[in-house]
């Protein structure tokens, strides 16, 4: 089922004419001419669309909060920071279907009463930023953006704003700080951006994929959308699949596809003569799944039920050649590097977790270190100021729980085979 990826295989897909062929910019005039802002919000509520940036918050509800706040001006921010390791689906939408994002933003603006939009795009996507700027110019020329859009009296302006290399700026309050020309560090929530956002004014922050889902919902109706995927998590999802699969790439599938189907039927399965070992279903921030969990459904609720998370839908797949201790080390180094330094548990804790992993990898570890790691990780999880710290420990904790024998092999200075035999005896 192609909703989000309906345009990406066209020749010159980013051009406005390619977008217009397939009912592009039909939803926007329909909303402006035939619907009240409240009706647009209701339609998105009926769809039960949940945010695709990681947290899965209902988009209609977020818009409702922002629309009820009477202060002006209001802002729509498209979160195109796409920093979660393993995620590259927003890049595909940005480069191949930028107008779908712009149309979704304009509809969101009309719904909540915002005249300004920003697209905060990570600095590492210079090509995407140029494509978005070109698309905005095209849309302004044809009066889909700018002043008095299609003579409706509604104005909506979009500015592309490039980040400069900081994962934390994907977190919505850090993003807003960064957009205000500060160091990108998280703010305390509440208050939430819907009331106190950019310049302390009402601001809707939505992920690229969330916004790209809006025009199809307005065109076909919320009920149509709500019937795709699972009841709790409707719609299609863009899964970014990478790692050791034969065909890494972005796959659009109804929410709730199983890990097995995604890996073996869509992503081409494992490389030759290799077997599945583990997968991180929601990027570096998620707990890994092992072979016994291949039939878990990849949606917000199902993954939460097994102690992991869907996050951005970044599925990183590992085969039997993967060394899970090294994997945990790579991921913890990432979080250590990206910690914004504002709070102690995350800043100091991640440093120590990494140091203990260094020691284990260098053969200086003890079995007691594993309990120490779990203990420190729990401290980081429960006391960190923002989501980065909270989720950062998931790869370490889950690999210790599910692949303890690999840690033990390092600790005993044995090969994995020897160590496993000892465990078994």
């Amino acid at each position, binding site marked *: 089922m192609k909703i989000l990826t309906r345009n990406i295989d066209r020749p010159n897909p980013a051009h406005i004419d390619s977008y217009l062929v397939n009912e592009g910019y039909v939803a926007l005039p329909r909303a402006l001419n035939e619907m009240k802002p409240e009706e647009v919000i209701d339609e998105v509520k009926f769809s039960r669309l949940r945010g695709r940036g990681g947290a899965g918050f209902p988009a209609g509800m977020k818009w409702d909060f922002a629309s009820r706040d009477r202060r002006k001006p209001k802002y729509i921010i498209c979160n195109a920071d796409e920093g979660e390791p393993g995620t590259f689906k927003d890049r595909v939408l940005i480069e191949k279907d930028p107008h779908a994002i712009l149309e979704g933003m304009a509809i969101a603006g009309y719904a909540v009463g915002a005249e300004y939009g920003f697209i905060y795009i990570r600095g590492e996507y210079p090509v995407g930023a140029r494509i978005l700027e070109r698309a905005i110019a095209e849309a302004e020329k044809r009066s889909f953006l700018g002043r008095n859009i299609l003579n409706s009296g509604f104005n909506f302006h979009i500015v592309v704003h490039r*980040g*400069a290399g900081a994962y934390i700026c994907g977190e919505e309050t850090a993003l807003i700080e960064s957009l205000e*020309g*500060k160091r990108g560090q998280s703010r305390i929530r509440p208050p939430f951006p819907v009331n106190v956002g950019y310049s302390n004014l009402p601001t809707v922050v939505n992920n690229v994929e969330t916004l790209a889902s809006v025009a199809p919902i307005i065109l076909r109706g919320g009920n149509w959308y709500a019937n795709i995927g699972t009841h709790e998590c409707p719609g299609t999802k863009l899964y970014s699949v990478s790692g050791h699969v034969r065909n890494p790439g972005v796959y659009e599938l109804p929410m709730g596809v199983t890990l097995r189907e995604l890996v073996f039927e869509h992503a081409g399965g494992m490389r030759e003569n290799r077997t599945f070992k583990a997968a991180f279903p929601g990027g570096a921030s998620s707990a890994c799944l092992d072979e016994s969990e291949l039939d878990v459904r990849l949606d917000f609720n199902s993954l939460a039920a097994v102690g992991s998370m869907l996050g951005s839908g970044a599925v990183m797949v590992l085969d039997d050649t993967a060394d899970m201790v090294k*994997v945990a080390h790579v991921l913890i180094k990432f979080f250590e590097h990206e910690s914004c330094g504002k709070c102690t548990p995350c800043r100091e804790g991640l440093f120590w977790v990494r140091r203990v992993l260094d020691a284990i990898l260098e053969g200086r570890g003890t079995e007691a270190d594993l309990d120490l790691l779990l203990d420190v990780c729990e401290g980081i999880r429960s006391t960190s100021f923002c989501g980065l710290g909270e989720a950062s420990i998931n790869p370490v904790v889950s690999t210790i729980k599910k692949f303890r024998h690999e840690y033990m092999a390092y600790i005993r200075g044995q090969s994995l085979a020897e160590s496993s035999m000892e465990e078994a005896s």
Partner: protein
Amino acid sequence: MIRSAEIFSSQEHRDMEAIVARYDSPASAILPLFHYIQKIQGYLSEDALTFVAEFVGVPHVRAFEVATYYTMLFTDPPGRHLIQLCRNLSCHVNGAEDILEKLKEELGIQVGGTSGDGLFTLVEVECIGACDLAPAVMVDGDLHGRVSADAVRGILDSYRGKA
């Protein structure tokens, strides 16, 4: 007081005014101005920081804080071409370490260093959203995917010719 004329042409000055005009709040233009200046001057000099702070009306320390917070901003001049090697998971398990070794060998530098001829600076970065093309390397704005150790020299050569 840094007079803009000392470090920017009048065209550049107009470009920067246009950047500030995009925002209700001038301070929001700090990052875009930094990107702009870094593109034309290669890095953010002390004078550039002072200029930006005055241009948007914030204390100098604020410009300094921002410039040193983000990994893509440089307050010291890097080599002419910036090589960013992804070290995150999907690249790691697809051979990023071999590429790192090859790059270090070809350039005779460590991570963070600049080659003797001033042409290349090598840095490691986190996932650059090209995991489907792992292992991935970005040189300046260009993405190179599915890079093998054998391909490294060819990639470097293709930049050696360029200004």
